[in-house]
């Protein structure tokens, strides 16, 4: 009953004309910047933060939240069309999404992503409304041993992810781990592999590397082709999924939503781990795993639902505990502080209209995004017919702007250029960059929590099996390893691999 009255208060707040307008503005802006490769919600929100000074706090937060999940929708668009993951959470979408586009199914892939995101967003909103408080207490159970074991699962999982040779995948994960070592060590403060450059003290820039190995490398590779380069992706048959597509994507969306709603609660890697896990699960349960990496619709539907659910759920730690779980949440917390509202557990009782209004606006925003995005699918797909000589320079410019906007550092653009060359070499050697990027994201978190756990236990390794949660994750990791090494799977992989050749 309480929930109903709270939700009706929320909808009453969110459905006021002014707040609807701000939600729409936020969603529209978010979609646009999400589509521009590299330009993320962080840069946009920081530019708009001063404008929110004059607004009532609820409207300000509704608009900022709209930018955030609007960008989540838009981010998959570039991943699918031009193979550029806008954020770490859409790295996985590239694998099958872009393959679908190459097979003339770009419209279907985009529709799938939009529908999956909408469904996951709706469920995510309901989960926040109903279970925010109990879920927050689960997050508190997570200490260094639990994080460490979760990261181990993620890393082993990222090997299973690769479609080519296992050996190459392992090599790429290890390379990612090694690259993750660059920067300051959290426990000792020693600067590792920084070569006295302050720009490297905080580690390599993930966005720059992603733009390099996916975007720039792809462009270099395409320049090799002789003659009038017609886009491979122009044959767009249909925009809307067939009955068979629906049958395949619906269960994947359901599973992805479940995974995202569960894993999204953990601060740090929520959306990344969720989309990765979802991809692995889809591949495992699929009747034809050989299709993965070659345009399997489940490979888009699952991860896209999972990362959107997780993005929504990541509001929980901020709203219920006062803990921002990522930079975007920190900006939201900043917007609240400007209006003298403490981002803390008391928000729910002291400003119920803000709390429930924001939650209601998330669902309204998801509806708006669906309405906004489905008609846009046709337009986005038209972008693929733009001749490369116009499209490529534009992509490069946006990549540079996006990379620069992360830290406002020119050095990062050089990083992107360097990784573009490396990425081209990867393409030539048929090495997949996705496992490397996941190693780069998960590795530092794993190392940090490993060290921290051992400091807490004074060097006693038993800490890693001292809690049931950590044991469960480590058990899962062992299971994954067995699956990876099992002859049945290896055979299946090899078969799939040969079909490709």
């Amino acid at each position, binding site marked *: 009953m309480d929930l109903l009255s709270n939700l009706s208060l929320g909808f009453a707040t969110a459905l006021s004309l002014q707040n609807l307008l701000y939600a729409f503005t936020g969603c529209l802006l978010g979609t646009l910047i999400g589509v521009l490769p590299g330009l993320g919600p962080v840069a946009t929100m*920081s530019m708009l933060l001063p404008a929110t000074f004059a607004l009532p706090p609820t409207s300000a937060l509704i608009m900022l939240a709209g930018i955030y999940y609007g960008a989540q929708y838009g981010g998959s668009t570039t991943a699918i069309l031009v193979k550029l993951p806008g954020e770490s959470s859409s790295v996985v979408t590239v694998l099958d999404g872009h393959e679908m586009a190459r097979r003339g199914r770009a419209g279907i892939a985009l529709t799938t992503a939009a529908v999956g995101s909408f469904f996951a967003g709706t469920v995510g909103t309901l989960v926040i409304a109903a279970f925010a408080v109990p879920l927050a207490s689960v997050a508190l159970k997570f200490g260094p041993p639990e994080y460490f074991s979760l990261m181990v699962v993620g890393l082993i999982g990222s090997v299973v992810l690769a479609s080519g040779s296992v050996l190459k995948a392992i090599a790429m994960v290890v390379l990612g781990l090694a690259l993750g070592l660059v920067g300051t060590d959290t426990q000792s403060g020693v600067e590792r592999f920084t070569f006295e450059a302050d720009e490297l003290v905080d580690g390599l820039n993930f966005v720059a590397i992603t733009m390099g190995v996916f975007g720039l490398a792809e462009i270099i590779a395409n320049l090799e082709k002789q003659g009038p380069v017609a886009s491979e992706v122009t044959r767009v048959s249909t925009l809307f999924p067939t009955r068979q597509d629906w049958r395949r994507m619906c269960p994947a969306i359901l599973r992805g939503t479940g995974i995202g709603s569960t894993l999204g609660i953990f601060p740090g890697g929520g959306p990344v781990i969720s989309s990765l896990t979802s991809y692995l699960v889809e591949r495992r349960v699929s009747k034809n795993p050989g299709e993965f990496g070659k345009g399997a619709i489940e490979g888009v539907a699952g991860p896209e639902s999972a990362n959107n659910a997780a993005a929504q759920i990541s509001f929980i730690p901020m709203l219920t505990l*006062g803990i921002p779980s990522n930079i975007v949440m920190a900006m939201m917390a900043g917007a609240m502080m400007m209006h003298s509202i*403490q981002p803390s557990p008391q928000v729910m009782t002291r400003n119920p209209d803000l709390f429930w209004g924001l939650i209601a606006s998330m669902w309204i925003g998801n509806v708006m995004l669906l309405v906004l995005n489905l008609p846009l699918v046709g337009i986005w797909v038209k972008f693929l017919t733009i001749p490369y000589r116009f499209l490529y320079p534009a992509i490069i410019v946006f990549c540079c702007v996006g990379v620069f906007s992360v830290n406002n550092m020119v050095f990062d653009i050089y990083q992107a250029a360097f990784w573009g060359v490396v990425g081209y070499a990867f393409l030539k050697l048929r090495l997949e960059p996705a496992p490397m990027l996941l190693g780069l994201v998960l590795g530092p978190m794993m190392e940090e929590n490993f060290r921290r756990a051992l400091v807490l236990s004074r060097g006693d390794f038993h800490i890693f099996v001292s809690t049931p949660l950590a044991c469960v994750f480590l058990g899962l990791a062992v299971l994954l390893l067995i699956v990876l090494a099992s002859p049945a799977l290896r055979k299946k992989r090899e078969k799939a691999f040969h079909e490709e050749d």
Partner: protein
Amino acid sequence: MKKMLAGLLCLCALVASGPIHAQEYPTRPIRYLVPWGAGGITDTISRLYNERVSAILGQPIVHEYRPGAAGRIGTGELGRAAPDGYTIGMVNAGQLTIHPNLYARLPYDPDRSFVVLGMMGMSPMALAVPVSSPVRSVADLRALSQRRSLNFGTAGIAGPHHLAVELLRKTGVTGVPVHYRGGGGEIMAAMTNGALDANFDTVYQQNIFRTDGRYRILAVTSRERMPQIPDVPTFAEVGHPEINLETFYATAAPSAVPAPILAKLVAAYAQAAQAPEIVAWLREMALTNVHLSPAELAQYIREWRERWRVVIEEQNIRVQ
């Protein structure tokens, strides 16, 4: 190309015209470098001040974020900027008072690169334990630390939260500092589930978790009790006057900025600090502020640098 050249020439002319017309300053927007990312208290406090300062000076103030290397990258850029009053920025305790004692090589000279022109807020810290802990006072914590080895959460090695833990050894409270990246949520989780025994953080942050029923605050590092938590004693009151610490948020300009321009900026920031909204906001955020002239600020920074030097050398803290 021609257009670009013309543009460049105009830009040069603009830059050159800055110092000449000091009495008309400012005639164009001012760049404000924040050596941290957007969001968070560093962003919020500078925006609140600059909204007023911009109204006083009659020109917009544009924020630029230069995060990286715990503020050293942005602070280095501020030190290298043209000293025409059109680039100013935030400086903090870390870059000016702590890092010079830790790093042989800095992208700025903490004494000569800047003139600190206004204090925006000083932030005392509070020592807290989980509410489930039997510890009720600093003396209790000392007794516990003699029975078993304690874990203290910090928001990063050699940051103020860590150095406070090191300074606490003087009171006989010893423990192992466990470093978290940026602190916040993970420290709170670790305090709640019992992995950590105590931590230092800003009074504002600790008070959030105190109101929430998670933390018990043992003492504050300010000279006087904080109005937000009037029942919590200062360290001096419980017999440890040497534990008196604060970090700060201040605005600085490159040191060669002309005196008339500097005077205008000093006056503008001093006036903004008096605005009732700012005073109320600082109180809400558990920050203190007193007016200090640039000469007093330089003295303040030198004193703090010396104090941190002693702590860092006595506890033999190294990062390189």
